């Protein structure tokens, strides 16, 4: 299951989606918006995406994970738009017969998602400034009005 949504992530629905009597293990990863990054305090975040390509890349990740591990269920849900502190921006859930492959697949999926899926986050700091996060790139910051 691949989803790109603006509503809060329904983790229960994600877990139900991968649960199966054929699976003995479920691993769920949630990425949540953290208050402090590099000593600076975040008030909220905005996520932007290139939707068609993001969905395509997420589907490729699921297909590749299914080639590498014996996944019973797999769900990748990314939220975009405005997120408050502490909310989940991404959920990755996998179910497998045995737990080792669930941990491996879950970690590979989130690691690879963060490298290849065209989604970007903008931090809105408590000091009123905001800036896009583009790893490896010095980004000019925008003062909030």
């Amino acid at each position: 299951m691949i989803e790109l949504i603006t509503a809060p992530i329904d983790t229960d629905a994600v877990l139900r989606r991968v649960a199966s009597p054929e699976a003995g293990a479920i691993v769920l990863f949630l990425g949540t918006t953290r208050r402090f990054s590099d000593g600076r305090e975040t008030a909220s975040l905005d996520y932007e995406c290139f939707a068609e390509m993001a969905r395509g890349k997420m589907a490729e990740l699921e297909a590749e994970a299914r080639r590498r591990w014996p996944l019973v269920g797999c769900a990748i849900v990314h939220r975009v738009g405005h997120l408050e502190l502490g909310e989940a921006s991404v959920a990755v859930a996998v179910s497998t017969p045995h737990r080792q492959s669930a941990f491996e697949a879950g970690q590979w999926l989130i690691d690879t998602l963060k490298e290849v899926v065209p989604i970007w986050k903008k931090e809105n700091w408590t000091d009123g400034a905001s800036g896009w996060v583009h790893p490896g790139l010095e980004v000019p910051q925008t003062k909030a009005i």
Partner: protein
Amino acid sequence: MKVNIRLFAVARELAGRDSIALDVSPGTTIGQLRARLAAEIPDLAPVLPHVLFAVGSEYARDDQPISDGSQIACIPPVSGG
């Protein structure tokens, strides 16, 4: 030939627009488009060396030639998750 380039995140904000349509000569590569964009939108120049481009929904190398009507996207370093 006509190509349309979508801009995202900091590229969109620096350019002040979310896409740009350009006329390019047949055989133009992604690398040449990268240089052309810097000339068309000088505010984008500082970030262009660091972005990737996609044709359709696939990442493209700089030596890839562009076809007429290609949907191209300028992809700054991603930060989803």
